[in-house]
C-alpha cells in the first residue's frame, strides 16, 4: 500500500501536488456506488468551501464555474486516484494552503490499522538551489548507520529519480519557501514505508562522488500523536544545553499537549540560569494552533499580549498569551526555515512582533491558515481552512511567512562543513546579550 506523506496532511499541500500531476481523463469504469460516493464527496468539498471559507467571495474565484467544469470529471474518473485528483484540483484553484484531500489509505494507521507504514530513515531534506539535499541525519538513525551525511545530494530513492518529482512540483508554483517546503516534504515522503523495509538510494557525496546506500527503515521515532482525522504524527522533542550554556529546544509538531507542554516546561526549568534560549522551529510542520499561545505563555510575562488574530465568517478571535509562572525571561532566539509551517509561523511571527524573540534563518513557508479535517463519503479526509490568520501588524502570514531578523540560510557547503549558520548567528546574538 502506498503511504501518503503524513506531513502533507498537516500543511495542506496535497492539493497543489495533485494539481501538478493531473491524470488524463478517461471513460468511467468505476463501480457505480463508488462513483456516487465520489460525487457526493465533491459536492461536500464544494459546498464546504462555499459555506465555510472566511472570504465569501473566495478572492474573486468563480466557484460555480469550478463546479460546472470539474464535477463531470469526477463522474468520468476511472480510478480513485483520478477522482481524488479532480477534488484536489478544485481546491488548488483557491491557491491557498490548508486545503487538501487526504487519501483514505492514510487512515490505515488509525486504531485497528496495521501501522506498518510508519517506518523512518531518520533524515530530513531541504531544497537548496533547486536540489534535494540531506539537511539533517538523526544520530544513531538508520540513515546515520548507513553512512549518509548532511550535505549529500539525493539523486534517487527507492529506485525513483528525485529530480522529476522536485521539478514537477516546481511547474505551476511560484518559486519560494512554500514550494521548497512542498518539494522537501515530498522527497522526505520517499523515505517512508514499513519498518524493516530496505530503501536503496543514490547520492552525490561531498566529494562529488556518486554513492549508493541501503537504508533499512527503523521504527518511528517520537511519541505517536493523534488528533481527530489527522493521520498519526510522531512528536519528537529535543532539549539540551549548547556550548556556551544556552538552552536549545526543538520539536517537530505542535501536537499532543499532555506530552509537549510538560516537556517544554521542564526544559525551561533547566535553562533558567542560561544566557538564553534557542527555540528551533525549523522543520516544524505545525499542528494545534492554540499551542502557539500555550508555548508563548512561558516566554512572555506581560498580560493581554497577543500573537495575532484569526478571522472566520462568524467573528474574530485573538491569540492571547496566558503568562505562565515563572516566566522565562532570558533572551530567546527562534530559528525558522521554509519547513517552519503554520503554528510554527504563528509562534515565531508573534514573538517577533512582540519584540520578545529575534528570528534567525530563512523565510518560513507562509502557510498558516487555521483548518479542520473531516472525512468524506468516499473515505478520504478533507482538510479545509476556515479562518485567515493575521499578525499583530496587520499582515497575513499566508503567502508571506515570517521573515527572519537575521537571514542565515542553510547552504550545502555549510552542511558539508558541519556548520549551522542560523544556529551560529543565534548563539552569537545570545552571547552578545549575556551579562558579564
Amino acid at each position, binding site marked *: 500500500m502506498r503511504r501518503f506523506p503524513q506531513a502533507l496532511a498537516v500543511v495542506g499541500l496535497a492539493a497543489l501536488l495533485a494539481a501538478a500531476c493531473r491524470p488524463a481523463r478517461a471513460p468511467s469504469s468505476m463501480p457505480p456506488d463508488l462513483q456516487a460516493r465520489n460525487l457526493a464527496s465533491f459536492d461536500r468539498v464544494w459546498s464546504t468551501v462555499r459555506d465555510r471559507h472566511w472570504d465569501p467571495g473566495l478572492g474573486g474565484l468563480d466557484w460555480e464555474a469550478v463546479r460546472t467544469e470539474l464535477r463531470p470529471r469526477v463522474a468520468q474518473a476511472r480510478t480513485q486516484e483520478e477522482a481524488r485528483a479532480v477534488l484536489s484540483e478544485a481546491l488548488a484553484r483557491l491557491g491557498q494552503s490548508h486545503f487538501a484531500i487526504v487519501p483514505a489509505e492514510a487512515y490505515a494507521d488509525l486504531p485497528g490499522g496495521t501501522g506498518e507504514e510508519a517506518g523512518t530513515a531518520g533524515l530530513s531534506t531541504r531544497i537548496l538551489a533547486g536540489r534535494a539535499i540531506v539537511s539533517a541525519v538523526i544520530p544513531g538513525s538508520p540513515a546515520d548507520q548507513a553512512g549518509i551525511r548532511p550535505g549529500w545530494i539525493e539523486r534517487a530513492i527507492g529506485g525513483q529519480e528525485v529530480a522529476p518529482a522536485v521539478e514537477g512540483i516546481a511547474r505551476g508554483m511560484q518559486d519560494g519557501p512554500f514550494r521548497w517546503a512542498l518539494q522537501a516534504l515530498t522527497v522526505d515522503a520517499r523515505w517512508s514505508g514499513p519498518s524493516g523495509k530496505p530503501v536503496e538510494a543514490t547520492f552525490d557525496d561531498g566529494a562529488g562522488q556518486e554513492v549508493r546506500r541501503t537504508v533499512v527503515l527503523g521504527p518511528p521515532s517520537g511519541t505517536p500523536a*493523534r488528533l481527530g*482525522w489527522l493521520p498519526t504524527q510522531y512528536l519528537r522533542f529535543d532539549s539540551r544545553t549548547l556550548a556556551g550554556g544556552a538552552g536549545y529546544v526543538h520539536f517537530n509538531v505542535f501536537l499532543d499537549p499532555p506530552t509537549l507542554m510538560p516537556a517544554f516546561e521542564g526544559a525551561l526549568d533547566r535553562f533558567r540560569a542560561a544566557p538564553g534560549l534557542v527555540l528551533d522551529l525549523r522543520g516544524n510542520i505545525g499542528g*494545534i494552533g492554540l499551542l502557539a499561545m*500555550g508555548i508563548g505563555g512561558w516566554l512572555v510575562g506581560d498580560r493581554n499580549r497577543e500573537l495575532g488574530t484569526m478571522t472566520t465568517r462568524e467573528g474574530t*478571535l*485573538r491569540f492571547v498569551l496566558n503568562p505562565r*509562572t515563572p516566566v522565562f525571561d*532570558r533572551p530567546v532566539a527562534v530559528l525558522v526555515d521554509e519547513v517552519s509551517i503554520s503554528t510554527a509561523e504563528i509562534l515565531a511571527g508573534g514573538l517577533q512582533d512582540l*519584540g520578545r524573540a529575534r528570528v534567525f534563518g530563512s523565510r518560513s513557508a507562509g502557510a498558516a491558515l487555521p483548518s479542520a479535517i473531516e472525512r468524506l463519503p468516499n473515505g478520504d479526509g478533507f482538510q479545509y481552512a476556515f479562518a485567515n490568520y493575521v499578525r499583530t501588524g496587520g499582515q497575513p502570514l499566508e503567502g508571506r511567512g515570517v521573515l527572519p*531578523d537575521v537571514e542565515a540560510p542553510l547552504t550545502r557547503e555549510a552542511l558539508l562543513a558541519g556548520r549551522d549558520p542560523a544556529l551560529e548567528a543565534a548563539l552569537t546574538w545570545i552571547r552578545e546579550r549575556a551579562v558579564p
Partner: protein
Amino acid sequence: MHLCLALLWTLSAAQAPPPPPAALPPAKQILDRYVEVTGGRAAYEKGKHRTLTGTFELKGMGMKGSLLLQQSAPDKMRTQIDVPGVGSIVKGTDGIQAWEVSAVTGPRLLEGTEKSEALLEAAFDADLHPERTYAKMETVRVEDLDGKPAYVVELTPKSGGAPRVSYYDKESGRLIKFTATATTAMGEVHAESRLEDYRPEGGIVVPHRVTLAAMGMEQVLTFDTFSMDPVPAATYAMPAEVKALLQPAPAPPETAPAPAPGK
C-alpha cells in the same frame, strides 16, 4: 461548551418584568411552565447537587472525548473535558473565584466579564429563582423553529452583558434552543445551542443531547448518566496551579533580564 452546559440550569427570568406585547405570555410564566413540565418545583428543590457524565464531540472532525459536569447549590460548578490528543480542560468556580486549567494554554484565573459569566452559569437555583440571576426578562415574539412555534424569551443577566435568548416550545413548554454570547480569553463567541432528547433523571426531565454551534463548528454534548448524589466540597477547591497565580511574583534573578531584540 462550559456556557452551554451551565445554561441548561440557568434559564429563568427576573423580578417584575414589563408587560409583554399583546398575546404573548409573560416570560416568568413561560419559565415557570418550563420548571413544571420538567418535573415541578418540588423536584427541583429536592436536589442540591448534580453530576452529569457523557461525551463531547466535535462533529465531523473525528474528535470525541469524555465530559463531566458537577454542580452544587448555591453557586459551585466544575466541568471537565478530556479529549484524546488534546488533553484535559477544566473550568470551575467556588462561588467566589473562577478558573480554567487547560492542557493547551495552562492555568488561568478568570476575570471581568468572563468571570461574571462563569459565576452566573454556576447559579444552581436559577430556574427556581431567576430574579437572583437576571435583571430583566422579556417575551419578545413567537418564532417557528423546525415548523413548530416557540416563545422567544430574552434574559438579561444582572452581571451585565448581552441578553441570552431562549426558545421554549409553545406546545411542550420545553426549552429547545438558546443563544448567547460567551466571553472567552480569545474574545467574544456567539453560540447557538439546540436541546434534544429530554428524558427523566432523578425526578427532573432533562435534555440528554445538546448541539452547540459556534465559530462555524458544531459540538455535540451527550449525557449518559445523571446523579443528584452529594458532590464532595473539595471538588470545587481552586487547583494548586491556579492558586500559584495569586502569589506575588518571585524576585528577579541575579542575571539581567532579556534585552530588546534587534540590537
